[in-house]
Structure formats: C-alpha cells, structure tokens
C-alpha cells in the first residue's frame, strides 16, 4: 500500500505510520494549548511537552529511516529543552516577585568615586 508516495508494507512500517499520526495529533493539541494559554505556566508546560513530543518524533524517525544521526539530534533536544524549562520556571517566579513587592527596595546609592577608594 502506498500513501502519498510513501510505501507502507510490513508491520513495522504500519506501526511507524500510526505512531507518527498519533504524535502529530498530540503536537497539534499541545500547540493549541500553547496558543490559548490562560496563564504563563500553562504555556511553559505546553512548551515542555512539545519538546518531549519532538524528541519522540525524532526517535521515531530514526526507526523509520534506520539512521543513527537522528538519535544525536534527539539527545541534544532532550538536554536543551530541560535548560529552557528551568530558565522559564525561574523567569515566571522572578517576574511575579517583581509584581508582588509593593515597594521594591531602593537601589543602593553608589557614591561617585567610591569604586576608586
């Protein structure tokens, strides 16, 4: 059987096709949540899940084309997405603290020439 030029024969090819469709559906749902959002943490969670699903898609691609290179990309994405999540979480907390503080601490005055002393 052939779908859009791609030949699907054997159980593995069918599994790859079905899995790809399901992951694509999941990615669409996640992007929808990323767009409508409600709160900022919602969007961060959606972004986290999006990178996880993209990692899964890369591993699936490695299965489909029998190429190890996609695994390197999946490995890098798994590491980088974690850094992004941590940075976003810190950003969310810090932004709220700025809004929450009624009167922020006044900037410590630096006297001119103090650095030279």
């Amino acid at each position, binding site marked *: 059987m052939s779908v859009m030029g791609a030949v699907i024969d*054997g*159980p*593995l090819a*069918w*599994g*790859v096709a*079905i*899995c*790809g*469709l*399901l*992951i694509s*559906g*999941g*990615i*669409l*749902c*996640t992007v*929808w*949540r990323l767009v409508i959002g409600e*709160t*900022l*943490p*919602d969007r*961060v*969670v*959606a972004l*986290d*899940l999006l990178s*996880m*699903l993209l*990692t*899964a898609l890369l*591993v*699936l691609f*490695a*299965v489909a084309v*029998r190429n*190890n290179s996609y*695994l*390197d990309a*999946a*490995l890098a994405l*798994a*590491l980088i*997405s*974690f850094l992004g*999540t*941590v940075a*976003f*979480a*810190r950003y*969310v*907390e810090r*932004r*709220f603290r700025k809004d929450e503080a009624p009167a922020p601490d006044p900037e410590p005055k630096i006297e001119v020439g103090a650095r030279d002393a």
Partner: protein
Amino acid sequence: MLELVVEILAALCLVAGGLLCFAAGLGIVRFQDVFLRMHAATKAGTLGLMFIVLALCLVAPGLETVIKAGLVSVFMIITAPVGSHLIGRAAFRTAAPFWSGTGVDEDCEVFRVGAATARMRAEKD
C-alpha cells in the same frame, strides 16, 4: 520468522507510544488547571517516549543505536520530573488558579500557601 515477530512487537510498542503521546496532548488540552495539565504532560509524555525508544531498541542494527536510545530515555527520565517540579513550584508561588475540586493543606507554610488559599477563597466568594 523471528524477525517478523520482533517487527510486530516493535510495531505494537510504537502504537502504544503514539497513543500515550496523543493522550499527553489530549490531557494538556482537556484538563482544568496547570497542575493537572502538568501531570498529564510529564508522565504520559515520558512513558510514550520510552515505548518508542523500546521499539527502536528492538529493531536496532547494532549496539551503538541501543546505547544512544538508552541515553535519550535516561536523560528524559532524569530531567522531566525536575523540570516539571520547577514549573509546578513556580506556578504555585505565582498563585496560578486552582481547579475548584483541588484541596489545599492549610497548615503547610513551606510554600507560602497562605497567598494561594486567600486567592482561592476570594475566587469562591
């Protein structure tokens, strides 16, 4: 014959992983607040990824592929809970709205629960 059985097993793992990934996406759209959505996204997403990695390991041509795939899943297992915990803590401290069915332990002061409960009560009244 053995190859066919292995391929069928790998295909089943792929379908299971795809279903879990789709469930994660569905959960993140359908659930009511940030914390429930996080629960769906992290757990179902990680398990789905691991099923797909398992399928890759089943049909892998050599040991190198298996090691790389194992590294991917190990990194996901280490980083996903930590990242999810950080987002959850940030959401809680920024007083993200709760679902009406969520209960809060009012004696807990470690996470500055006072502000969150005050907000919940204000929304209920």
